[in-house]
């Protein structure tokens, strides 16, 4: 843990990085004090509330339909079956195409990867420009952007359809990537701006004295110091874009439809029996990628937020 402290020279940076790792509250005293029982008890109860739905999803997804109709949703499956998973992944139908979620998986990847990369690149450059190269009027644009974070997506569908149509990229992957970049921009720019503002300003000055320009400073000085905040941005974007349904379906053609469209089709197949087990399996399969990203990089997430969002 402490090695991260040593890695960073600037006091502000060191504090920021260390901040994500070490608990700072008052120290606990005895192991089995009343205080500890309260502490862990509360945490355990909270954990139960957060875990319950996941448990229900997993359990339900492994039951057969007859068992679901009879039993309660919390009881473990009497007979474990993976049939719903298979069905959700490979057999569930959308209209004439009966290949389940698998159909949309690669599309989701094809959408998420470039959208995540480009939106982060653009937002980080914005944040960098706002933090270090502020020009007259920059704050105005930023304020509009922040207000834009509050605009419901649905409101913007028509204007964006028109803009994309005029640009001639409606229905293309490029168009969708741009849409994701636009709607990811407010929050990401805020995060990056805060992060870059928290870096010691003298580093930036030193680089300018060294003759580095806008892009050289960005790529050679700022980027290498910004891993934590990039991790945060990546997690937020992967989650958001992977889970997106509306844009994926409105701004592309069927050959690009992401996995969530199939999920929607499976879950909302209105005219048929509701197969809860398949729904849950499909839900878990669709959520798998962001979930894995969270489980793997959750630690970096807190550290990154500590480094970025904390500083105003």
């Amino acid at each position, binding site marked *: 843990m402490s090695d991260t402290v040593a890695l960073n020279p600037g006091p502000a940076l060191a504090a920021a990085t260390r901040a994500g790792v070490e608990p700072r509250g008052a120290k606990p005293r005895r192991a089995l004090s009343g205080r500890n029982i309260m*502490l862990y008890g509360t945490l355990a109860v909270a954990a139960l509330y957060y875990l319950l739905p996941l448990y229900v999803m997993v359990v339900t997804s492994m039951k057969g339909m007859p068992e679901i109709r009879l039993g309660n949703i919390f009881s473990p499956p009497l007979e474990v079956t993976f049939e719903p998973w298979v069905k959700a992944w490979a057999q569930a139908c959308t209209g004439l195409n009966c290949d389940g979620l698998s159909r949309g998986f690669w599309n989701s990847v094809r959408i998420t990867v470039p959208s995540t990369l480009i939106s982060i690149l653009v937002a980080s450059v914005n944040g960098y420009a706002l933090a270090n190269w502020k020009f007259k009027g920059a704050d105005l644009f930023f304020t509009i952007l922040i207000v834009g974070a*509050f605009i*419901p997506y649905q409101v913007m569908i028509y204007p964006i359809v028109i803009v994309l149509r005029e640009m001639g990229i409606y229905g293309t992957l490029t168009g969708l990537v741009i849409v994701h970049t636009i709607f990811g921009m407010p929050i990401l720019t805020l995060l990056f701006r805060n992060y870059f503002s928290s870096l010691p300003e003298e580093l930036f000055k030193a680089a300018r004295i060294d003759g580095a320009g806008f892009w050289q400073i960005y790529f050679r000085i700022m980027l290498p110091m910004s891993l934590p905040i990039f991790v945060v941005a990546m997690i937020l974007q992967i*989650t958001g874009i992977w889970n997106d349904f509306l844009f994926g379906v409105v701004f592309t053609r069927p050959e690009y439809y992401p996995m969530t469209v199939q999920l929607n089709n499976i879950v909302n197949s209105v005219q048929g029996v509701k197969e*809860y087990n398949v729904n849950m399996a499909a839900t878990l399969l669709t959520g798998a990628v962001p979930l894995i990203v969270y489980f793997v990089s959750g630690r970096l997430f807190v550290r990154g937020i500590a480094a970025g969002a904390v500083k105003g």
Partner: protein
Amino acid sequence: MTGQAHTGRPSKLLRNLSSKIASIPMMLTAVVIFLGGTIWTVVYSFTNSKLLPRAKFVGFDQYERLWDAPRWIVSIQNLAIYGAFTLVFSLVIGFLLAALMDQKIRFENTFRTIFLYPFALSFIVTGLVWQWILNPEFGVQSVVRSLGWTSFTFDPLYNADIVIYGVLIAGLWQGTGLVMCLLLAGLRGIDEDIWKASRVDGIPMWKTYLFIVIPMMRPVFITTLVIIASGIVKVYDLVVAQTSGGPGIASEVPAKYVYDYMFQAQNLGQGFAASTMMLVTVAIIIVPWAYLEFGGRKRV
């Protein structure tokens, strides 16, 4: 200092040129999409556009109809309730969890992952699973009843008076983990000497949190607030997946009104009028604050 050619101040436009060029995507987004889209929306809210936008102006007709619509009124009330409770509860729960997590506990990583994972799931999934859990025939109610308490009633999704709280339970489940993370990060940013000082001064822990630590966490609270509040205004998917606005119109929200009228009712003008009301409300609350917070301040 003589004989030197006098170099004039370069054009204002060219100063910081790279920065300006690099900010073009941001400027375009801000001006064309957010500002332009907003203006376009406002303009067309004064028309009777149906399926397609058309410039037949009808004055305030759409607004009169909007404010006469019981569903819109219910939506606004729901948003107010949902918003107020989400704001308060996610900050309170998020902060409590963060404070607990900050007590040098064991298994911190495990707990954090548990609290945070719902954020990885979409609102659609969140709505579905909580619909399932709160279903009186399968979920919590039936389980408690099967344990012997047969008069137990807990069916928020089928009770118009409390349905919005059912949505709230799901919304908090999805969002508080992130709030906790943000606030935990903020807590970790507090100088340890503050804790030492307050311990030496004999200030009770809760007082230290309330009067010293929380005021020091202002920046992180602002980021958190932006994220929570923008989520509240946009709440749509969750309601659609969990209750579809029901029972009746008891859990309708403004974003859903906008979407339904724009696309299902094919009455763009009405949808735009509702959007405009949302935008105006947001603008009245957010713009002055955002400008104070992000605008005039100079970097030190």
